[in-house]
C-alpha cells in the first residue's frame, strides 16, 4: 500500500480541515503515511502533494528535512539510543556499543529479520534518567546492558505489542474536534477582530482614533 487507504484518506481530510492553509498539514500527513506503511513511500508523497496542493518536490523537500521520516523500510522496532551529553556522561557510548553487539548490527542498520533498526540519536529529553533510549518513540530509561537484553528479548517474543505499536505509529489517540464544538480555522487573509476582543478593541482603539482626527 502506498497511497492512503480510503480510511486514511478520510483521516487525512480531517487533519487538513484543521489548518487555515493546507500546506500546514504536510508534516502530519507524512506521519500518517509512515504510520500506514512503516516508512514514507514515493506514492504516499505524491498522494500528499495532491491532497495539499503542492508539488511532490515540495513534499520531499519537507520530508527529508526531518529525522523521523524514513524513506526506506526500517525494522518493526526502531531502537533509538540517545548519544548526547547527559547520556554520554552516563555511559551511552557503551550502551550503544552493547546494543550493536546484541543485535549484531551497526548503528544505522536493520537486523536481517526486519525486527530491529538501531540508531544513535540526539537528546530525547530524558536526561535525568540517563542513559535512555526509545523503541518506536516509547521510552526506556536508566538502561543497563542487562535491561537492554531483556527488552530485546521481550520485543522479539512479541510481549510488548500492546505497549509498543509497530514503527510509524505515534499517538494512538487522535485529536478529534466535534463539529458542533469547533471554533473553526482562522484564515490569514480575513482581517476580522475576534468577537471577544471587539469591546476591548473598541474601548482602546477608538479614543486613539479620535485623537488622531
Amino acid at each position, binding site marked *: 500500500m502506498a497511497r492512503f487507504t480510503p480510511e486514511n484518506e478520510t483521516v487525512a481530510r480531517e487533519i487538513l480541515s484543521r489548518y487555515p492553509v493546507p500546506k500546514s498539514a504536510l508534516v502530519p500527513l*507524512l506521519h500518517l503515511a509512515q504510520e500506514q506503511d512503516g516508512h514514507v513511500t514515493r506514492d504516499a508523497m505524491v498522494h500528499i502533494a495532491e491532497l495539499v496542493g503542492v508539488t511532490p518536490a515540495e513534499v520531499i523537500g519537507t520530508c527529508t*528535512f526531518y529525522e523521523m521520516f524514513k524513506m526506506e523500510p526500517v525494522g518493526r522496532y526502531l531502537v533509538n539510543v540517545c548519544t548526547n*551529553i547527559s547520556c554520554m556522561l552516563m555511559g551511552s557510548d557503551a550502551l550503544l556499543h552493547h546494543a550493536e553487539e546484541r543485535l549484531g548490527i551497526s548503528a544505522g542498520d536493520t537486523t536481517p529479520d526486519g525486527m530491529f533498526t538501531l540508531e544513535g540519536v*540526539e537528546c530525547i529529553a530524558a536526561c535525568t534518567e540517563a542513559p535512555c533510549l526509545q523503541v518506536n518513540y516509547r521510552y526506556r530509561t536508566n538502561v543497563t546492558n542487562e535491561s537492554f537484553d531483556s527488552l530485546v528479548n521481550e520485543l522479539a517474543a512479541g510481549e510488548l505489542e500492546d505497549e509498543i505499536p509497530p514503527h510509524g505509529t*505515534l*499517538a494512538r489517540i487522535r*485529536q478529534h474536534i466535534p463539529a458542533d*464544538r469547533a471554533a473553526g480555522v482562522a484564515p490569514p487573509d480575513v482581517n476580522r477582530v475576534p468577537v*471577544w476582543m471587539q469591546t476591548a478593541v473598541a474601548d482602546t482603539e477608538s479614543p486613539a482614533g479620535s485623537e488622531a482626527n
Partner: protein
Amino acid sequence: MAVTDAPKMITSRFGRDDAHTLAGYEASGGYQALRKALSMTPEQVHTQVKEASLLGRGGAGFPAGVKWGFCPDGVWPRYIVVNGDESEPGTYKDRMLMERDPHQLIEGVLIAAYAVGCAQAFLYVRGEMALAQERIAAALNEAYAAGYVGKSILGSDFSVDVVLHWGAGAYIVGEETALIESLEGNRGMPRLKPPFFPAAKGLYMQPTIVNNVETLSNVPWIITHGGEAYAGFGAEGSKGTRMFAVSGHVKNPGVYEVEFGVTTFRDLIYAPVYGGGIRSDRQLKAFIPGGASAPWFYEEHLDLPLEKVAVDKAGSMLGSGAVVVMDETTDAVKACLNVVRFFAHESCGKCTPCREGTTWLERILSRIDDGYGRSSDLALLMDVCDNISPGIAWPPKQTTICPLGPSAVSPISSALQRFRPEFEAKVAAATKARADAVAVAVDVRTAVPHG
C-alpha cells in the same frame, strides 16, 4: 542551603496519577483560572501576566507579558503557537508538563489566546514524544467535550480551536521562526529577525505569539493568584519558580521546580533534596548551566543564584533550565566534541558559516580526539569559531541567522580556555605518534644498504 518552601506552581499535580485526565485536573482546581479570566477583560488578563513578569522558559528568557503586547494593532487574525519542541541536550521539563499535566498547559494556552485575541492556537509537540502527543490529544478531546475549548468557551463569546501538531525530528524547529516554518509545512529553517519577529510577522505572516510549554503552564497559577502574588516569589530579574533538569554526574539526577534567585547552583547540585552532590563524591569539573548552547560554568560559579541577570552577567545563561554536571573524570575534549557534533548534525543548513563551520569544527575535534590532531588545530578551532561568532564573546555575536551556529562555539571556547592542556596533550600525543611513524619509515629506508 537556601532551599525555600515556595509553592509548586506548575508541578503541583505531579504527585497525582490522574492529573492528566480531566477529572483529575478538575478535582485539583483545574480550569478555575480560565473561568476567572473569562470574567475579566482580555486587557486585565494581559496586565496580570505583565505584572507577574513571567519570563519565557524556552531559552531566551524574554518577558511573556511584554511579548504579548508586541502584536501590531488592528492586524488580525493573530495566532498562538506553543513551543513544545524541547530538544536542547540536557533539557527535560516540557515533556513532563505535557505528559503529566496537559490540561494545565491547555488552560494556559486558552488564557493567553483570550488575552491577546488569538483566533487559533497550535500546540506544536516534538515528534519523538508519543506519550505527550497521546496525553494532549486525549486531554483536548475531553476539554472540547466539556466545553473548555472550541466554540463559545464556557458559554462566553470566546472561541478558539486548539490544534495539536507534531514535529518530526529536527532540533532547529525549536527556534521560534523555524517552528513557524515547520508549522507551515516547510523545512524548519529560521527566518531572519528583523523583519520576521513572530509577534509582528509570524505564522502565515500574521501576528503570532510563540511561547514555551513551561511559560504557558505558569499562566493558570498567575491568573488564579494574581500577577503580584507571582512576582512575590523569585528574585528581582526573575520572578516565580522554574523547572531545572539536573543531569550528568550527580547522585540524584532529576527535574526540580525551584524558586528563582533564592536557590543557587550549589543548592541544585549538592542539596540532598536536589542533585545530592557529585556521584561517588568526586570533584566537580564543570557544569553547563542552561542547556548545551550555554557556555560552561565551573566551581567558582556554584554560588551564583538561579537568576537570569546574574547568570547572564557571569557569561552564560539559564537557557532552557538544563544543568549538566561533569565530574573530574570527564574527558573535556570528548564532552566538547559531543556537544559540537550535536549542533553540526542539527544545523538546518541555511547559513554558510553554520552549515559548513559547525561540521568543520566537529571534524577538527574528532581528529584531535582520534589522535590525529595537529599543533595548529587549536588556533584553527578558535578562528573557525570566530568566523561563526565574531569575537567569541557573551552574549554571542553571529555571522548567522539564528543562534544555533554560535551555540557550537560555546563548548569549544569554554573547554579550550579551561582545559587547554587536555587538548594539547592529545595533539602532542598525535604529533609524537606521527613523528614515530616517520622515524620508523626513515629507519627502514636508511637500513637499505647502499650500492
